[in-house]
């Protein structure tokens, strides 16, 4: 009896604020203004402007995720080898930037990248040609990498610290060189962290609209922007919900991948 009572608050909460709202997105996405069932809002992804936005989002978020991975993995390895008693401090150092608001951090990049911004000022100081940095896909990727990199570092770092050093020593004793150890021992053991890092970077990058607005000068339309505008400007909830469902397909794929590697069901976020 007590068992049921304990489970009650969260069960009620998750039904009310997770499942029902999600069901409503599906309801709106699968109906038209009259309330009749339709697949039109989902099929709308096939139109030129929507599919372009989706492909661009997929491409940019994929690039960001790859960059994040290659930046984060070596870093996590280095951090892992540093003195053990500083673990918490290291973790905190990467959460710390989040105390400076996300939009302000992105705005700061605007200041750095602008035509008469800091980077171009430095370039012209050395008589180098100024670069057109802002409002390009590159600037958006940079914004994504910058904002989501900590989410890649932390899970990888966590899973690396969990590896028993004896396993690595054993590999060395058995004649494996550093590279072999990395490839055959360390990397497979850190895979849960890598997978959850990929999820934590890929999903927010895929669905962002603030970064593309601020660093893309509204010139580059991502799928997140399309959905946001359907709700806040065109007031076409049905279309917006339909496109959200399409977006969720990619997220579910990611979730499946995540649970396949994370059998413990505990996640590696922190």
């Amino acid at each position: 009896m007590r068992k049921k009572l304990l489970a009650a608050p969260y069960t009620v909460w998750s039904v009310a604020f997770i499942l029902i709202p999600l069901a409503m997105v599906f309801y709106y996405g699968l109906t038209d203004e009259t309330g009749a069932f339709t697949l039109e809002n989902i099929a709308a992804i096939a139109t030129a402007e929507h599919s372009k936005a989706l492909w661009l989002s997929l491409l940019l978020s994929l690039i960001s995720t790859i960059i994040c991975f290659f930046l984060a993995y070596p870093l996590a390895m280095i951090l892992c080898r540093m003195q053990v008693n500083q673990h918490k401090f290291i973790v905190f150092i990467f959460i710390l930037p989040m105390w400076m608001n996300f939009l302000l951090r992105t705005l700061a990049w605007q200041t750095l990248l602008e035509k008469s911004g800091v980077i171009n000022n430095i370039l012209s100081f050395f008589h180098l040609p100024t670069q057109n940095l802002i409002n390009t896909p590159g600037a958006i990727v940079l914004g994504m990498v910058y904002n989501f990199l900590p989410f890649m570092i932390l899970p990888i770092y966590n899973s690396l610290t969990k590896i028993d050093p004896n396993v690595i020593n054993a590999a060395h004793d058995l004649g494996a060189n550093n590279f072999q150890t990395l490839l055959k021992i360390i990397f497979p053991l850190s895979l849960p962290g890598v997978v959850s890092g990929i999820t934590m970077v890929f999903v927010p990058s895929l669905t962002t609209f603030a970064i593309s607005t601020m660093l893309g000068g509204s010139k580059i339309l991502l799928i997140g922007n399309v959905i946001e505008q359907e709700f806040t400007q065109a007031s076409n909830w049905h279309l917006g919900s339909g496109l959200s469902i399409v977006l969720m397909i990619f997220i579910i794929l990611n979730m499946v991948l995540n649970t396949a590697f994370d059998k413990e069901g505990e996640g590696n976020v922190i």
Partner: protein
Amino acid sequence: MIKTTAQKIYVALIFIFLYAPIATLMVLSFNASRTRSKWGGFTLKWYAELFENEAIMEALYNTLLIALLSAIFATLIGTIACISIHRMRRRTRAIMIGITNIPMLNAEIVTGISLMLLFLTLGVKFGILTILLSHITFSIPYVILSVMPRMKQLNPSVYEAAQDLGASPARAFFKVVLPELMPGISSGFLMAFTMSLDDFIITHFTKGPGVDTLSTKIYTEVKKGIKPEMYALSTIIFVTVLILLILINRPQKKKQA
């Protein structure tokens, strides 16, 4: 030797990457010129004006209030949920964990929209309450994630032993189980607090008229020209957290946390 130097340089470069924009904002908070692109000399006037600016102060108040309340509720609900999920049968547990993961793995924009649709249908007045409910919702998974591993490490016989020695179930729980969970609970709380503080997208869809958090305030300001007071405020917040962090960590260096 060369290798460790290279490693240090690498770490340093990532640090520069992460903290350069923050340093830029701090420098801008002392810039006398209103526009970002020109340096107009050193000034402290934005710091003075910050405390005069009612709109920013109110947004700050809302942000902290929502972050604190949502973190408290999320920690409470999340911890209770952990205890109950832990005791569930395998299948039910898998389903519950799956549901728990939804707000974390789903796109924030979809979560925001789904909650907006819910509140609209229910006819709830958009304001602090709707933001708070949404923040609790997306914070709970983070609490569960950090408490769950502790829960698993917990030896069930300790709880039983306490009861065998005459402790009531409640007493056994508070004296034996809770202290074991505490590190997970507090890091979950911290995570929930930070997530709420930094959230923009979900707040953007669930906020009401005249109610702003710092994030939504900044988003509107970004579009119409940001006020330097905002840089001053972020600098204060950042430096405060940094100093506290350093103070807290110093004595910890010798022993494991």
